[in-house]
């Protein structure tokens, strides 16, 4: 058992780990050490106390949120979540500027692949903390250059990372290819912030961007995907940004088109649907209203929308990105 508390800066949230078993600490360290961005504002504190439990926890039903490996309920005590292996997380206390979570993990599962399910519970605590700190988590990518900032929206596997990498090669700065935070600033203007400056790239990407190297030699970052994690500064130094004001919503889709890229304007309703579709919305009124209000206000600030369909093998042709930047 580690006796010291460990802390991680994860965007606007500072995570403190209470002393815990090394197996838990290693797994959480893997998840949190990749967040390398800097924040000036006072952090919101999230305390995690992870302990082994003798038996699987009572199942949550998913009345607040239903995820593939985790159900979350809103209870009188606060959020309560369980995963497939019987691990649980309970929001145990909340105070001005912070909250604490009690996480139980079945002792008999610690040395099995089920340990990965800690990631779901820690992720829930992070999202809770980010929201409490005034930010809306967005599953999207963002790039910025010359006063423009594109929010690239697509489902998992939809092409966000590859398009982000292509734009970074072309001189744009990235705020991330997967995890962003969004809020309305004190001046009422929308602001997007980076959480981590890494790319999750498929090994095939090397065919278009040889400087990423042989990604097959690197470990997979998840059993779910063949993608590898690549840090932007390792490949394209200086091409990262911390904050930007979004100017465009770009809906990205893949399609085996005979042309490299197809671009069309996106109407207001489609922009709303696109951006809100990148945000996990629980079955809880106050959170849902806050998310919808943020998205509506962001769009009312005058963003433009583009629908971008990426053709197969489009990145071989430099015309692809020229067409996109010309449409902005």
């Amino acid at each position, binding site marked *: 058992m580690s006796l010291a508390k460990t802390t991680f800066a994860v965007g606007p949230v500072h995570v403190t780990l209470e002393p815990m078993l090394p197996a838990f600490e290693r797994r959480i360290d893997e998840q949190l050490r990749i967040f390398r961005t800097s924040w000036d504002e006072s952090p919101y504190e999230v305390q995690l106390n992870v302990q082994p439990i003798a038996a699987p926890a009572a199942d949550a039903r998913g009345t607040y*949120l239903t*995820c593939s490996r*985790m159900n*979350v309920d809103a209870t009188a005590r606060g959020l309560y979540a369980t995963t497939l292996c019987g691990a649980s997380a309970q929001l145990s206390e909340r105070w001005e500027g912070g909250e604490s979570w009690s996480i139980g993990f079945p002792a008999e599962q610690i040395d099995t692949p089920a340990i990965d399910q800690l990631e779901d519970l820690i992720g829930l605590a992070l999202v809770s903390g980010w929201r409490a700190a005034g930010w809306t988590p967005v*599953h999207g990518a963002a790039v910025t250059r010359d006063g423009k900032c594109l929010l690239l929206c697509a489902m998992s596997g939809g092409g966000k990372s590859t398009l982000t990498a292509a734009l970074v090669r072309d001189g744009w700065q990235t705020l991330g290819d997967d995890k962003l935070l969004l809020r309305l600033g004190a001046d009422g203007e929308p602001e997007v912030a980076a959480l981590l400056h890494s790319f999750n790239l498929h090994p095939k990407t090397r065919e278009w961007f040889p400087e990423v190297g042989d990604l097959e030699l690197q470990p997979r970052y998840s059993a779910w*995907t063949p993608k590898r994690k690549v840090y932007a500064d390792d490949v394209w130094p200086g091409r990262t940004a911390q904050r930007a004001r979004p100017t465009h919503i770009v809906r990205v889709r893949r399609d085996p088109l005979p042309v490299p890229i197809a671009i069309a304007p996106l109407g207001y309703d489609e922009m709303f649907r696109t951006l809100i579709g990148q945000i996990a*919305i629980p079955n809880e009124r106050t959170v*849902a209203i806050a998310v*919808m209000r943020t998205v509506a206000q962001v769009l009312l600030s005058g963003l433009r929308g583009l629908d971008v369909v990426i053709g197969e093998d489009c990145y071989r042709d430099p015309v692809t990105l020229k067409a996109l930047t010309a449409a902005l």
Partner: protein
Amino acid sequence: MHLSQALNRGEMLSLRADVVATVLDEGAVLLDLETKYFFALNASGWALVQLFESGASMDDARAYATASGAPSDDSVDQFLTRLCEYALFEPAIGHCSGGVPDPLTGSAWLAPTVERQAEPLQTVIVSAFDPSIPLAE
């Protein structure tokens, strides 16, 4: 059908508690947290829906529309019937009409519209952060 019949019988209905709204430039968007469908309302539609936040009847809605300059047609009835079909209302048990608020001003009354998005948000998602459809493991 049950709800629209109740509406036509003059009973009070209210917007369901798990339907949330946000105001847009012109009109509003509703999100049904149970089905995860979005509904886009124009300004007249949103004005009518607000009557039902605290409970209202068909007569209340008609009176409000007339006071706001609506022509005497069945557009309000059709609009509210659509909302009933989408199950956005529930019986307003214990509510009583709050009376008809001040009519809509600042823009001409248009026939109220509600448009349901073709696809709902995913009900089962990857994680608390990622709203994507989970991939098979």
